[in-house]
């Protein structure tokens, strides 16, 4: 590898004085990633109550199990009741901004999705869902990172994999470089001169600890690219209004990176606060506040990207669902299956995918929770294969017997 110092020694100084580092010159070539597709994974940390998010209002077991927090059956266009999707399921009314996307076919839903592992620990379940290996704690990397490993891309930019978080999530841990940045505006070396920046870069290129060395490379490569591009300066498209708060900010910045053609192939964002053990609420309440944020952020993102959404898929995940029965505090405890939203141009939207297991007593997992009928890895397999073009899924999902026949079918083949 040519170090910057060696480059400077060979007379590259003139370029540097124009503010262009050598590696960023190479990147003035087309910047979109080689396939031009982007997958955005949005993790709802805390275990979202899938049953009050996409409501199986026609299932007889639903209302009986939730005397104080059930969402009322749809009534025309009433906004204090479920918004009918297909005569069986309805959206939580706080998700109203998503209804047009459902109707135009760009939003699909997979219900009763989750992990086969029985754990009800947030920590373990998130870990399993991000490593992609339920029940196996020794897995070092995350499935999203392995998607990139499975398709090495010599033309990749430093933004091929990006997480809108201050530290890298488990899903993106691994050999393939990935950048973590909570905020594009803060991503930089503020008051330090370029000379100081170069010295830091050299120090980290020589760091003994591989983690520090790798993060250094990712950070400085990304900084180089940001010297010639200004994604943070891009404004949302007309009509795209992101909600205030961390989720809106994350999705807005992902849109900026995509619009600035930074070469984003996978992006990760997260939003916490779904662990509603108490006062979960029904039409209004804690869950409704979160869902309003989620729905308006996704709708703004969709609007902001416009025709670019043809090449983008957003998928939501959450570590598990919540008990079918409400608990003693108008909340719900840790359960099993939940729901996933999949949004984008290639999505077979306007339908709820996956087999509905039902809420009758005999159908419940361990007598209390919605059963998992779609293994989350089947959705991962479909996203990796159909959207990211990964041919060999065995690397992405080791020890998982995947098959296109079990894909939920949420993307067009």
């Amino acid at each position: 590898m040519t170090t910057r110092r060696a480059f400077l020694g060979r007379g590259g100084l003139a370029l540097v004085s124009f503010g262009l580092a050598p590696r960023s010159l190479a990147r003035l070539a087309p910047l979109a990633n080689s396939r031009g597709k982007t997958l955005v994974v949005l993790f709802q940390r805390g275990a979202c109550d899938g049953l009050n998010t996409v409501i199986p209002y026609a299932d007889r077991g639903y209302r009986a199990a939730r005397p104080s927090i059930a969402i009322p059956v749809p009534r025309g266009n009433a906004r204090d009741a479920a918004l009918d999707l297909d005569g069986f399921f309805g959206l939580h009314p706080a998700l109203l901004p998503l209804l047009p996307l459902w109707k135009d076919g760009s939003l699909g839903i997979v219900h009763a999705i989750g992990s086969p592992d029985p754990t009800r620990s947030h920590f373990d379940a998130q870990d399993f869902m991000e490593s992609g290996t339920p029940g196996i704690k020794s897995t070092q990397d995350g499935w999203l990172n392995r998607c990139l490993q499975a398709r090495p891309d010599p033309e990749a930019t430093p933004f091929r994999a990006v997480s809108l978080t201050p530290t890298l999530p488990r899903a993106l841990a691994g050999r393939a470089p990935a950048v973590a940045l909570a905020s594009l505006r803060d991503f930089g070396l503020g008051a330090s001169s370029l000379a100081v920046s170069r010295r830091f870069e050299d120090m980290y290129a020589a760091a003994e600890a591989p983690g520090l060395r790798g993060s250094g490379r990712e950070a400085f490569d990304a900084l180089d690219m940001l010297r010639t591009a200004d994604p943070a300066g891009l404004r949302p498209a007309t009509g795209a209004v992101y909600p205030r708060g961390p989720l809106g900010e994350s999705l807005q910045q992902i849109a900026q990176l995509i619009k600035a053609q930074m070469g984003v192939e996978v992006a990760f964002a997260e939003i916490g606060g779904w662990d509603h053990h108490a006062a979960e609420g029904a039409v209004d309440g804690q869950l409704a506040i979160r869902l309003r944020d989620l729905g308006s952020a996704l709708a703004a993102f969709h609007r902001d990207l416009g025709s670019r959404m043809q090449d983008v898929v957003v998928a939501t995940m959450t570590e598990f669902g919540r008990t079918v029965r409400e608990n003693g505090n108008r909340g719900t405890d840790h359960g099993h299956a939940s729901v996933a939203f999949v949004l984008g141009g290639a999505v077979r939207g306007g339908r709820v995918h996956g087999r509905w297991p039902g809420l009758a007593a005999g159908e419940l997992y361990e007598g209390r929770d919605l059963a998992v009928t779609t293994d989350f890895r089947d959705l991962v397999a479909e996203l990796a294969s159909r959207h990211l073009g990964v041919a060999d899924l065995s690397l992405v999902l080791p020890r998982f017997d995947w098959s296109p026949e079990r894909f939920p079918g949420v993307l067009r083949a």
Partner: protein
Amino acid sequence: MLSAASLLSLLLAVPADDAGILHALNRLTWGPRPGDVARVRAVGLDRWVEEQLHPDRIEDLAVEARLASLGTAGLSTAELRRSYEVPKDAKREMKQKQAAMGDSPSEEQLRAVKREMYLKLLPRMAGRPQEVIDELQEAKLLRAVYSERQLADVLTDFWMNHFNVYAAKGPDRYLLAEYESQAIRPHALGRFEDLLLATAQSPAMLFYLDNWISAAPGTDLSVLRRGMKKRPDPELPRSLGLNENYAREIMELHTLGVDGGYTQKDVSEVARSFTGWTVRGLRTDGATPEFVFVPFMHARGDKQVLGRTVASGGKDEGERVIRLLATHPSTARFISTKIARRFVSDQPPPALVDRMAATFRETRGEIREVMRTLLRSPEFVAADARGAKTKTPLEFAVSALRATGADLLSAREVAERLDHMGMPLYMTQPPTGYKDTAEAWVSSAGLLARLNFAADLAAGRLMGTLVDPASLGPEAGLKLGSPEFQRR
């Protein structure tokens, strides 16, 4: 390439043969200050360690003087609430005004209502509720940088993270100072069972993990008479039932560990045992929330916990469960592993963990003795343990402030920088707390935030922090930002 020790030697002018002392300072304190190595050499490493194991014998006046500058200093929970909490009536009035604004008021409009409320209230308040969290963070940083009881402070941080409580949940911000000073710090080197019991009966934890509202299924409080001696909080919902939140986390996160051998059935049974452990005064303006046991909320009948019978009783059922969990072999192993991970390496040597767990069992959970086993172990002083830990953002920032002899006039800016590094103090929402392994903290954005902190601190650009850039030398920022300084 400079080793971590030799680089620090440069920064702190430490002779190389003091590497052992430097290692101890890197692990048992928040990082060496100029002159610390010489001070430890003068008293002798063993004696210094013994001192640190008995914090009550160490005078700590300097840090107390610094803490006294905070507006919240020395305030009881009740005083804190009277000075900083928005009274319920005012909050209700604001909500009503916001609700009356029709279908979809803009966020600007909603904020205007809030501003109006504060304009009216603030003359009578010491500050906004947010300032309570700000000052919790500042107090924590001041203690870490300036307390002489360094090991006790490091362990207090360790246990606060182990028994994490999120400051932004409801009234928890007002409860955290007392939680730390009464439930955690006095037991940081004491008996684990006392620590566990203190957290279990703390209003902060009872509220955070919802046990205060957990009751026998079908509990109907509306039948209770007013003026009952052991009355539940008047703000409790009338109808209550079982809540598993605390029961699960006390086993998974506080004691046995997720692989410690409990089942869903155990979770439900432990939840039943703890019903009635609640808090009074939590929602009353200016009140001091206190732990109470309310027999009326308690689920009667024997419980089966981890294969043992917890015979039907009252408050004592929870206490028996605490004892069962605190003395369980899985707990000895889980706690020992976590301590070794903090003080030795991300993957602590199993033989060391075995010996620590044995000490834990033999002493019925005396944390000081478990620490002694660790500190006297060859694994702790082994050459490959030196510099083996990557500093968390908090460890990095505090060690840099200590290494530069910085004078923190205000720790506000440091707290905000930690936010950017992904470690806002007292503000991690999940009960798992923060991770203590390198991969959780090494990232591109995190690294840039550290480099900015290093450069700004060394150049005297960190707001509220005084350093003498001339005496630190022109390379100080590079040294503090170096890969070596990210390790301890």
